[in-house]
């Protein structure tokens, strides 16, 4: 049984211009101990999906089953126990830590909130244990976030998420604000922790090389919908959706040998307000035909665990 089952989850916001379909009918399973990477450009709804899964935002429709329990309909006090199992690591290590709290206080906060420590001594042990786990020196416990660099701050964020012993962590662009050399340290840490604690990650990012490095499965999102989903090797070797193809070909590769033919998309991502019932990518798609502009494609199984939401998948 998968750890997390997401069935037809939708998240709409009403805006002055109409209904914004931030997440539109997403269905997927996440197996325990695996990482699912969510990629897409800004505004595609990937962060909203992550927040909806751990009920930072309430889903408009759909079901989320975590460990055999449906969580969208739960009362708040019921969900409190579940929340410990589902944590989040935030994108910006600069704004996601309260500047007035020391490293110790920041890591102790979740433990105190759930009264998981017996007495001061126990709390101290737990906090220092977590600091060691994420690679923060003990002497930093009295430091404040503004005195630390981005990498160390992100380690604090990771320690906070780990402190409640979660099973599932939504990582919302955890390395995109960091320099490459620091980014590698954090990615290694996340992967080590996953191995040690059998954690399940949802890794949200716009950086293709990072997502390929860390994920088992990858879902590509476009305007609130999952347009393609497959194992990482399969997806990168054989992208089927024209958007994925363009996305992959646009990645700047730090090498002067692999000169590839680029697929340059025309136009930009449009806003997902009151979308028409057609393929949402049709306007930018180099292969769009009449059918694409008239009916919405379904997410089809193309074999080998590869799903694609395109009328012409496999043809072009």
């Amino acid at each position: 049984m998968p750890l997390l089952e997401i069935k037809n989850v939708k998240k709409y916001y009403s805006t002055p211009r109409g209904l914004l379909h931030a997440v539109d009918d997403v269905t997927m399973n996440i197996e325990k101990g695996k990482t699912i990477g969510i990629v897409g450009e800004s505004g595609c709804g990937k962060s909203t999906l992550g927040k909806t899964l751990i009920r930072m935002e309430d889903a408009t429709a759909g079901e989320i089953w975590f460990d055999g329990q449906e969580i969208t309909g739960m009362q708040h006090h019921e969900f409190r126990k579940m929340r410990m199992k589902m944590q989040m690591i935030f994108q910006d290590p600069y704004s996601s830590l309260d500047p007035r709290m020391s490293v110790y206080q920041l890591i102790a906060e979740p433990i105190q909130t759930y009264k998981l420590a017996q007495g001061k001594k126990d709390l101290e042990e737990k906090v220092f244990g977590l600091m060691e786990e994420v690679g923060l020196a003990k002497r930093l416990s009295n430091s404040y976030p503004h005195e630390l660099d981005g990498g160390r701050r992100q380690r604090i964020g990771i320690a906070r998420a780990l402190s409640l012993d979660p099973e599932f962590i939504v990582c919302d662009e955890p390395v995109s604000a960091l320099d490459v050399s620091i980014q590698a340290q954090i990615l290694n840490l996340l992967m080590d922790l996953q191995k040690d604690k059998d954690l399940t990650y949802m890794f949200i990012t716009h950086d293709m090389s990072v997502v390929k490095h860390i994920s088992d499965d990858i879902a590509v999102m476009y305007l609130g919908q999952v347009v393609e989903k497959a194992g990482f090797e399969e997806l990168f070797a054989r992208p089927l959706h024209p958007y994925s193809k363009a996305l992959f070909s646009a990645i700047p590769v730090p090498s002067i040998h692999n000169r590839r033919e680029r697929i340059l998309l025309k136009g930009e991502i449009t806003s997902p307000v009151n979308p028409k019932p057609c393929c949402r990518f049709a306007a930018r798609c180099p292969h769009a035909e009449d059918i694409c502009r008239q009916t919405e494609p379904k997410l089809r199984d193309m074999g080998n665990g590869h799903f694609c939401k395109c009328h012409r998948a496999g043809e072009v």
Partner: protein
Amino acid sequence: MAENSKLLEVKNLTVHYETDEGIVEAVNDISFHIAPGEILGVVGETGAGKTTIARSIMGLLPKPPAHVISGSIQIEGQEMLSDKPESKGFFDFAQKRARSADERRLERIYREIRGKKISMMFQDPMTALNPVLYVGDQIAEVIKIHENVSEAQARERAGEMLELVGIPADRYKEYPHQFSGGMKQRVVIAIALACHPNLIIADEPTTALDVTIQAQILEMLRDLQKKFGTAIMLITHDFGVVAEICDRCMVIYAGEKVEEGTLEDIFDNRVHPYTVGLFDSMPDMYDNSLRLKPIKGLMPNPMDLPSYCSFYDRCSVRCDACKDGAPVLREINRGHFAACSAAAGRGEVE
């Protein structure tokens, strides 16, 4: 290389910031040049001093707290830094007057050439545009300032510039907020190119954009560069972008140039352990080895740089000799420089 073939020449530039906490040694003794029509990539991490270099060239350093300690910046042979020393004493009125008169003179020259000979593109297209003016008028403004043209002519030229960067000219009378991020960056490029400058300094021009948009912008930048023969100094932290459009590349670490060379030199024959470490830290799209090899540790505090090699503490190939003094920039191959005592030797052997 003949003297006149250098569009921009920076020699021994050292810039410090004097803050309440101490002196930040942002740029230390950096020299480089850009030839006409060349694209130079400047790569470094946060705090390496990339933006300070760009601002020094544009004459846009905030003074105080910034102080140009030494060095020279020549744009088409014209010296842009004051040679009058900064006065040390409180009562050195004569010297202070001489210095500030000289600075005013240079500022006048800068005002002439900024936008005309050199222009700058900023990272965040949102803040680089004035939200209450039509985008078209913002382009026309630059043309009006630098060229002796009528209002109508300037407008017409601005419309042409919009078309050139792929925006229909009938969007002239729209405000920046009506444009998406990529479109705004196109407008910024149009402003930068409006007077056909010889040099554009682009400070992380695509960092705020999505990859598909980044690809569009880079493609366009390359096309326009070819068309006008403009030289570009491209500041970035992404070697992928460098590989995409640059001719030459230099790597900055803690305010110092650690390696410089052609793309072949840097991508295939890199010698400085920092450059090597940067490449090793990047997840490779084609090789999925499970663990990355990050550079250990952090960049040294720019308020407290060591007297020896500033990469020493993080270096994997360091030796005792590295601690003896600052490494000297050595030419390893023709046009390929590296500042590493340990690696320079190896480079020659290879």
